[in-house]
Every structure is written in C-alpha cells, then in structure tokens.
C-alpha cells in the first residue's frame, strides 16, 4: 500500500506545519457531524500484487476470450489480427508516460498522431482528419454539432441500416438538445433513395448513412450523397477504416463528413472499450474539427490544438493505430481487407449451401453478412457454438424484428477454411 503513496514534494509533517494543522483529520473538521463517515464502508482487506492478480485472473477466466475461441461476432467491433509490434510500442509509450506525464507534451507521440492523421486522410480521401475523438458517440455528436451549426436547421436523418448502437446514442443526444431525429427506411438491407428524400424534407441539417452498413452491405453512397446535396443537406458517411483500403472513399463520393471507429486498425475487443475514433471533413468545414488535431509548425515542432484535456484521451490509441498501419503498410492493409472480403463470401456460400440457412439480402457485402436460420433459433445456435469453442454472430431480431430469425456473421482475415468448416457444420446441424 505504501508503494502507492509516493510523496516527493514535501513530507506530510512539513505541509501540515505550513498549513498550521496538527493532523490531516482537522481538514475534515467542518463536515457536519451527522454526515461524517464513522463506520468504514464494506471492502475486502487490501490485496498485494500477487493476490490481486489471482482475483483478476479468476474474473478474466470466466470470460470466453477470442484469444482462445474462434470469433464470428462483429457488428462494429472486429476480431482482427494485430501484429505484436503494436502492443509492444503502446506499452512502451504508456510506461514512458507513467508518472503523470502529459501525452500532449510529448513531441514523439504528437508526431505519431500527426502521421496517423495523414494516413487517415489517405484512407478516407478527406482533406482534414481528427483522430482523437472519444468513441463513436463523440464522433456522432461532433458530426451533428457541425451540421446544426453550419445549417441552422434542427433535424437529422439517420438510416435504418446504421448500427443500432450508434442510432441509440444519437437518439439520446437529440433528445437532450431538442433536435428532431428521423429515420431513413431501407430496401433489401440498404438505404433507399426514395426514403431518403422523404425523410429529409426541407429542414434537414444532416443525413447519416453507413457503408458497409450494419449488415455488412455496401451502400450506393454516391447516389445517396447526390440526393442529399440536391436537397442542400450535409452528408455524413460512417465508414470502416479497413474497408477503405479497398472500397470507394468518402472523398470520392463527395461526403461532407466521415466518421468511424478505428478499432479494426489494431484495437483489441476489450468489451467495447473505446479505441480512437476519427472524423474527416474537407477544408470548408475544417475549422469545426480543429480541437484535438495535431499541427506541424514551421519549425518542425508539433502541437495539439486543445481547448480542454478531453481531446488528449485517445492519444495512446491513436499511436497504436499509427503503428498498426505502418506495420501493415498499403499492401498489408489491402491484403487484410481482401481476405475479409474473400473469407466472408466463402463462409456465406458454405452456410447458404446447407438447407439450414438462407440469404437475407441480395446485396454485395464486405466482411459481414446476414443469413436467416430456417431450422433453429439463432440464440440456440449461438449457445451451441460456445460448446465448440466458437463465438457466433449477432441475433438481429432484437433490433430488426422485421428480419425474423436472422444472424449477422462476421468473418475476418483470421478465419481459416478449417474453422469455417467446423462453424458451418455445427451451425447447420439440426439437433
């Protein structure tokens, strides 16, 4: 316990003396007598390092980890391969900063974030990218804030095929700030342009569409962006950064804003803990995203634009993202994305070749797809998969009751033919 109490400034006695106090107890003398805590609250006795480890390992051991099991679960967070160097360097940086240092004062870390910004500009095709946002809820809030400020309108339209997790955050945000939120209907698992036009009306500040969408389907972003722009509405694309190694960029289809979760770029699953999230815009909107951007000054020094400390939160994960992209390189990223694309189609075809599964949509997809189970409830299938050391997909009926007994399956570059074979065999078994 004493190891956690390093006090390098002045000894306690000296500080007490200077303050004219005889003990630290006196500081609390003005707390009303009837509320001052007299009985300790319940806590187990303090644990040393070894015993703490035992307790925590026990908890960790009661989870099934994608490190041991074979994971076919995605829906926004994916089990990708992470080269060793990523965690090595982030651990090294974290240790270097250990001791209360400020990441935003480290030139080296700022340079890494600056380089990540350039990587993300390349991947998204947008002119400016901020990579230090607080998760997707922070990114969505930022996108909404830009559109509301830019247009003066108070309505946002979001597609039904956007990740429900994100839509729920938007709902809370819009309710809190009295913004009207409407939904864009879908046809065959992608946003419909007719529904988009209907939803926008003439008072809409922002349209939000995701591609690949929540179902993994590739949306016709070019057509959708065009319709939004004809209506003088800003168009925000939620993108998956790994897919951008292959797929059309928001810059190419003229999105005004793109946001996304950096997790596929070297982030752990970690029960959904935020990695870095990004927002990209073109120069005309750049002033809205300055807070949290790293700039290079004329003398080659780097500086973080920061109004408050919250923008420094994701600096270490931004560093991990920079290392991941550097380690994979343009070819590695493309190859990983191609493997996701190929493996997903391979699995889809194997599953739908059995009588136990049918396609839900007839659309092109990336890394993830929906199938309908014809014989068994997908929750039962998921339970059964656990017995075989496999983590099955998302049961879609909670958020999309209209799709019935549908299953959202993600297949990353990690999945092998053998794993897919076992997965298909056990998932389609009728018992």
């Amino acid at each position, binding site marked *: 316990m004493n190891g956690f109490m390093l006090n390098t400034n002045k000894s306690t006695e000296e500080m007490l003396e200077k303050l004219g106090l005889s003990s630290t107890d006196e500081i609390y003398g003005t707390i009303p007598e009837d509320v001052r*805590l007299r009985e300790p609250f319940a806590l187990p006795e303090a644990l040393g390092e070894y015993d703490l480890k035992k307790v925590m390992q026990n908890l960790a051991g009661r989870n099934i980890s994608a490190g041991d099991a074979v994971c076919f679960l995605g829906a926004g967070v994916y089990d990708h391969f992470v080269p060793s160097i990523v965690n090595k360097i982030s651990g090294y940086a974290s240790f270097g900063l250990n001791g209360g240092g400020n990441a935003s004062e*480290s030139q080296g870390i700022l340079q890494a974030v600056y380089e990540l910004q350039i990587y993300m500009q390349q991947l998204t095709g947008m002119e400016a990218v901020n990579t230090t946002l607080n998760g997707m809820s922070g990114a969505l809030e930022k996108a909404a804030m830009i559109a509301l400020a830019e247009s003066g309108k108070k309505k946002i339209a979001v597609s039904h095929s956007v990740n429900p997790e994100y839509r729920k955050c938007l709902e809370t945000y819009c309710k809190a700030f009295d913004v009207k939120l409407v939904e864009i209907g879908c046809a065959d698992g992608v946003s419909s342009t007719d529904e988009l036009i209907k939803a926008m009306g003439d008072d809409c500040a922002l349209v939000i569409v995701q591609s690949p969408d929540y179902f993994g389907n590739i949306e016709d972003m070019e057509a959708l962006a065009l319709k939004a722009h004809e209506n003088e509405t800003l168009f925000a694309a939620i993108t998956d950064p790994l897919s951008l190694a292959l797929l059309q960029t928001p810059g190419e289809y003229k999105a005004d804003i793109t946001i996304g979760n950096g997790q596929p770029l070297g982030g752990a699953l970690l029960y959904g803990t935020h990695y870095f999230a990004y927002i990209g815009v073109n120069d005309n909107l750049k002033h809205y995203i300055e807070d949290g951007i790293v700039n290079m000054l004329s003398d080659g020094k780097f500086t973080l634009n920061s109004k408050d400390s919250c923008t420094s939160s994701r600096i270490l994960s931004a560093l991990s993202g920079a290392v991941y992209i550097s380690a994979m390189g343009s070819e590695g990223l493309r190859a990983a994305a191609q493997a996701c694309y190929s493996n997903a189609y391979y699995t889809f075809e194997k599953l739908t070749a059995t009588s136990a599964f049918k396609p839900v949509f007839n659309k092109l997809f990336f890394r993830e797809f929906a199938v309908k189970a014809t014989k068994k409830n997908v929750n039962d299938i998921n339970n059964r998969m656990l017995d075989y050391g496999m983590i099955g997909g998302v049961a879609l009926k909670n958020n999309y009751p209209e799709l019935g007994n549908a299953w959202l399956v993600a297949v990353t570059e990690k999945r092998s033919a053998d794993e897919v074979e076992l997965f298909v065999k056990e998932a389609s078994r009728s018992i």
Partner: protein
Amino acid sequence: MNKMIFEYDAHEGKTYSLPKTAIDNRSFAPIEKYMRKTEAKLPDLCEYQVAEHFKSLLSDTACTGDKFLNNIFDDMSRLDGFTGVHPYQLPDACQGALELVFTLGHMLCDMFGMKQFTFQPSSVTGGVLTALGIIKAYAEKQRKNRKVILVSEDADEALLSYIEKSGFEAKKLDFGTAELDKEELSAVAGAVMEISPLKTRDLSHIFDIAAILRDNDCIVCCDANKMKSFIGELRPGDMGFDMMYFDVENVFEVANFEGECDCAALGVTDKLSGFMPVPAIEIDDEEQYYLSFDKPDSIGKVNDFYGDFSCLIKTISYILSLGFDGLKEKAHLNALQEKYGKLCSD
C-alpha cells in the same frame, strides 16, 4: 527533429504477415463499381524500419511526476480474458466482465452512499450531459416545467454551455452563503454543487441547502471530481445529494497520464435509478449476471457499448489494492496536497 515515416525508403518485397487461411482470394469483379479509384499513399516498410521509427519517436516520452507507478493495473487490463471479450458476447460467455462491472458499481455505491452507478458516460463532458439528461427526464416525468439549474459562481464554461444546449437556464449562486428564495424554487429543476477540500467550510451550508432543495423536489447533483480527497470521510449520499458524477481518473489514480481514461462514473439514489442509461447490469436468482435494457424511463444509451472497460479493470484493481484504510489514507494525503498547493500558489 525526427524523420517523418514517409521519408524512409520503401522496403523491397513483402513487409507484412497475415494469417494462413487456406481460403482463396476472390475476384473483385462483383464489387468493381464500389472500389476506390485513387490509391491510398501509405508507406510499405519492414518491421525493422517501423520499430526504428517509433523507437526514435518515443525516446523522449519519459516524464517525471509525483504519481505512483501503476504497472500492475496496466497488466490486469491486458489479461487475455479481458482483451478478447467482444461486447456482444452472450452473458454466459462474459460472466467475468459483467461481474467486474457489477461489483465495482456496488463498491462505489457503498463508498459514496448511492443506490446505482453507471460507467457508460465519456470523460469530461459525459458525466455532466448524463446528469442534465436525468434532471430533464425527471422533471418531465413529474410534469413540471422547471427550467432553472443552480450552479456555483465559478461554474466552468462547458457546464454553462451544456445547460443552455439542454434547454435549461443556469443561475449562479454562492453555495457557501446563499439563502434560497422558496418562491423561486418552483422553477428550479436541479442544482450542481461541487465538493472541494478547498471549500470545506461550505459543506455545512451545502448540507442545509440540499435539504431545502430536496423538500422542493429539485434534483441535487454533486460534481464529485474532487472526491478523491473525501473517500472514507464523507459520502455524497449522506450529504443529501440525489446524484453525483466524476471522471474516474480524477478520483482513482489509475491513468498513466492525464486523459488516458475515457470514463465518467455517475451514481444516483433510489429516486433516480429508473432514469439511468441502459443497459444496467443485474443479477438473477441463479446468480447469473445479465444486461438489462428493460427500463421504460431510462434516458437511453449515452455511449456505444458499455464505456471504458479497460479503465474499470484498473479501477477495481486500484480499490482492491488499497482497501478501506488505504483509500482513506490516500484521501487525507490528497486533501493535504490540494490545500498545500493552494497555499503555495496564493
């Protein structure tokens, strides 16, 4: 100045390794129309070059400060059984993660006199926003058109701007001396008051004010970001607060550097627990933990997934390492340092 990563010479040959899958690559023909037309200009370097680059970048990160080294907490957050848990796993497959968050919530309830905690809000602004959302939802549920939020005279800009954006009006008061006008209280939805070791003299008055506000059905909220100086001495719940929020790293020293954790904790008493963000973690008769979304009065989801789980692993490790006596001793030292720091800067 360090070399930019784009200045390294491209490595000849393959620079990456990918898992061997025995699945053939598929033609891009079907998705041709949707593929990117421009090339992403990213470097192709070998691992040696990448390591050299980042090593040179990080050679100057070492900082000196007065925080303890929390390597063990870091290690705990990197246990494979935690890093490999997907947020959508079935409850059966992540009982350890659920138990951890559930247990931490209970520890904080005991520590601070609250009924329920959530860790979903983001740091810095998330706690305030969620608190305002709950105040708003409570007023609506009571069908009361209350628009005023009382704040202290030194309330920061962020708080004031969020109050305005949420459709409320901020009214500044000195909580150490203010006399409340009972007539005006019918317009007050809530109050946000800070507990600080530099203002311990205010505590007795805050205690009295909280009682009046509660009698008039106003929500009394504690900005508990300075709570690290009071653990073991004072519980906001006993002081009459209905709700409290703080950035976890402000109260528990679990971050290696400022801003590392993206996690605010928000606690409420019984009266407000129905309004808390979903999902809540609950336990059934068979002692199985599960996520409960069935909360009709909830303000909804305030973050994607369940907050900064990594920070929660470190926090529970911290609390277990210190125990009650350690936490209290640390609180005394924090209060002393805060007061001493103030003395030196005056």
